[in-house]
């Protein structure tokens, strides 16, 4: 029943990944161009995320199957698709954690917004650590932290910093939402969801602080694809 809509790798939003994975695809060429030659850290991870086509990813969630918790013994590898998604999320969390650390170090943000920034900084660092450990547990290699470029933002003072924070958090929330349907493991999905709604809290709080709508897309949040996210974070990655 409804094969087209059950959670299987390769359908739904996974199509974007598949499209990028095709060696000869225009989108891949465009994608690499977009990433820019200098954005080495991000490029490596996105190439890894897009090029994992050498082995078919695992079986997805068997629709209506019996519980069979023992089919993957402890310490077994996760699917390449999940590893790539977690590494993608990790890159974004690295970016966020680094941003807040620089913001706090700069002393540019003061008063109540500084308290919010401090809490968010701790949270993003916790996300980084959890995602790094998750990649390792899944049998993958965590990506390196990207070299970031927030100099212009920091030079812009508190207003620009908070505006940028809002942008990054709204993007992060959309990025997690965009991957939910592509995740195969229930555990990884649970972890991603548990981070997704935290990013949502940050996004709305920062929107409120800078005077933007707390639910900019109305009652239903919109997802973002990897391409959209990469394009949006490109200015913050050092060339």
């Amino acid at each position: 029943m409804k094969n087209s809509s059950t959670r299987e790798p390769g359908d739904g939003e996974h199509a974007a990944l598949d499209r990028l994975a095709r060696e000869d695809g225009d989108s891949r060429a465009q994608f690499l161009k977009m990433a820019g030659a200098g954005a080495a850290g991000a490029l490596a991870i996105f190439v890894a995320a897009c090029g994992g086509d050498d082995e078919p990813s695992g079986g997805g969630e068997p629709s209506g199957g019996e519980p069979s918790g023992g089919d993957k013994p402890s310490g077994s590898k996760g699917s390449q698709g999940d590893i790539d998604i977690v590494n993608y999320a990790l890159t974004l969390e690295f970016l966020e954690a680094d941003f807040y650390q620089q913001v706090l170090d700069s002393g540019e943000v003061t008063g109540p917004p500084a308290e919010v920034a401090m809490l968010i900084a701790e949270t993003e660092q916790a996300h980084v650590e959890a995602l790094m450990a998750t990649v390792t547990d899944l049998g993958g290699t965590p990506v390196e932290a990207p070299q970031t470029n927030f100099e212009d933002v920091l030079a812009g003072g508190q207003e620009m910093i908070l505006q940028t924070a809002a942008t990054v958090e709204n993007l992060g929330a959309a990025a997690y939402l965009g991957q939910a349907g592509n995740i195969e493991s229930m555990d990884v999905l649970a972890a991603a969801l548990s981070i997704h709604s935290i990013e949502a809290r940050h996004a709305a709080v920062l929107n409120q602080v800078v005077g933007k709508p707390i639910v900019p897309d109305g009652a239903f949040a919109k997802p973002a694809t990897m391409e959209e996210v990469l394009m949006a974070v490109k200015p913050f990655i050092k060339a």
Partner: protein
Amino acid sequence: MSTKNMATPALANIEVQGITRESFIMRGAIAAGSVYGLSTVGPFVKQAVAQEGGGDVDILNFALTLEFLEAGFYTMALKNVDGLSGMTKQLATTLRDNENEHVDALTATIKDLGGTPVKAPGVDFGMAFASEDSFLETAQTFEDLGVGAYNGAGPMIESTDVLAAAGSIVQIEGRHAGVIRLVRGEPIEESPFDKGLAMEEVLAAAKPFIKG
């Protein structure tokens, strides 16, 4: 539904307690018995046991019940709380409108899947409307609960379409929760991870507000 990669130590503090879809629904149904009464739960259990891809309907009905509670809560708050400040009134209006849209969307989705949407529960919000503070405090409870409920149910959803819909809703609940906490001067999150709650935990927390 099997759970893959069950033993990933890094996920120990954020995973869904190793629950399967079956145990999630059955435990929830048993807990629901204490909330809604056995006559309501009978068909629910039957449906859960007989599920053939229909499990998503049960999860959606669970979500719908919560959204009914939330929508009703904000609707009544706007009528009953004396002296709401301008900002709180505006916030409550946005939240009410969002929750009503969630109710409508979930109702339509359940019908699309061939299910029957649950009816709105009778509600009793106690002293929540006594003041702006008590209203906001209860609102925080509801929004945090909504986040936990969706996050707990999410991994059990079979259809990617339904998962996408649930994801787009839980992000809104998370946004509500964060802003209410900000307004109240509370930490915007209790932990770096919004743990998923089991259905029984959610129902136990919602029980005081359900009349009957």
